[in-house]
């Protein structure tokens, strides 16, 4: 059986390899890269980045919130030591690849151990053709663990109050055993965009608990950016509520959480 599998694998890899083609100007592009290279590249890995492992599927964006509560499906892992000092700046590699166009907005962790989220408008390469455009950059920092990314900025359409852009869950053990000592590494977070009239963000857990979120304006970007930190539990879903300055609920974002690790 193993021999058959090995032969099958050889054949499949050979067939797949034949599907990759090379561009006629590859040598010229490599020479240009040598000539113009900078010390840090857009996709250079951060020295201490912990990979995000939670994918988030947006299930609906409704004008009214709430869904039946169910208990959390797993128990949290207990961190061994208190949080470390929170860095005061986002990872240098992101600042190099997508230099800020204005001030960097900073938010303290609205829940859980000390964490910081940074958002800023940048200017960087946005596709494999090396096209440059205005980007929105995010970075969430938990003790030693740093990570983040930038992508082309696309304002929300007027009909949409809020949207989720992404989330993270620190892979402490895989990235670096030292992160194992960092409690913040076990708290996943989600972030996204919201219209300017949104002033307050609250996350509702399946068992009905309500946690505060954070929201901020970012220079050179028309939308606001929100951030919620979730408890270190395997939650099946959450509801994120968006309200204006008078407390009127404007939207609810229902998210199904899928943990890939």
């Amino acid at each position, binding site marked *: 059986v193993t021999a058959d*599998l*090995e032969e099958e*694998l*050889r054949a499949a*890899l050979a*067939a797949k390899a034949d*599907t990759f083609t090379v561009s006629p100007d590859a040598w010229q592009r*490599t020479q240009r890269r040598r000539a113009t290279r900078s010390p840090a590249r857009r*996709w250079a890995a951060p020295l201490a*980045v912990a990979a995000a492992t939670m994918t988030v599927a947006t299930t609906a964006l409704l004008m009214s919130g709430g869904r039946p509560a169910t208990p959390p499906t797993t128990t949290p892992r207990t961190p061994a030591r208190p949080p470390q000092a929170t860095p005061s700046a986002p990872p240098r590699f992101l600042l190099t690849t997508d230099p800020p166009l204005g001030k960097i907005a900073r938010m303290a962790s609205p829940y859980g151990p000390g964490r910081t989220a940074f958002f800023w408008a940048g200017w960087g390469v946005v596709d494999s053709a090396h096209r440059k455009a205005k980007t929105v950059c995010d970075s969430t920092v938990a003790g030693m663990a740093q990570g983040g990314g930038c992508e082309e900025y696309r304002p929300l359409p007027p009909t949409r109050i809020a949207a989720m852009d992404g989330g993270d869950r620190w892979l402490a053990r895989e990235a670096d055993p030292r992160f194992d000592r960092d409690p913040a590494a076990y708290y996943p977070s989600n972030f996204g965009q919201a219209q300017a009239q949104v002033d307050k963000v609250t996350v509702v857990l399946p068992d009905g608990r309500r946690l505060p979120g954070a929201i901020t304006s970012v220079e050179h970007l028309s939308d606001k950016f929100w951030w919620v930190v979730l408890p270190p539990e395997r939650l099946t879903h959450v509801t994120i509520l968006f309200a204006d300055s008078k407390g009127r609920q404007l939207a609810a974002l229902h998210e199904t959480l899928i943990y890939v690790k």
Partner: protein
Amino acid sequence: MLKQTPAQHAPTLGDLFTAHYGGLVRLAGLLGADDPEDLAQEAFARLHGRTRALRDPHAALAYLRATVCNLTRNRARHLRIVRLRTPRPAGHEAAADQSAILREDHRELLAALAELPTRQREALVMRYWLDLSERAIADAMGVSTGTVKTHASRGLAALATKLEDKR
């Protein structure tokens, strides 16, 4: 394929590029790089200026392979964060026209391979596509030969299990 050839003279970067660029693009692609050409070009750009490696084509090729492995691994790690911002469309891994020319059983096997941990995938690709020795695989992965054996055997076993489950 990344075949090694005896050195008649110290090869230039252009010589190495002509001989190995295509193979390195394929290696990056098989390891799961989202932009294999970008990574292969970066590997060559990094080789530039490393005169010791350039004098020895075997060392140069080993350096290029190791760089492609590292870049693919790091790139994937970084993209996992970025991609969370925009859900991947179905079938992103391979373009539709590429999928169409792969046999169904190959697609199934390659899908299972893509689900393996990175190190296991690297060991299997370099063993079964490049036919590299365990020593050469270990150099490219930056691990010991014993670790290569472990990753390869565990990877093969995991592949067999995944395929059994699917079939």
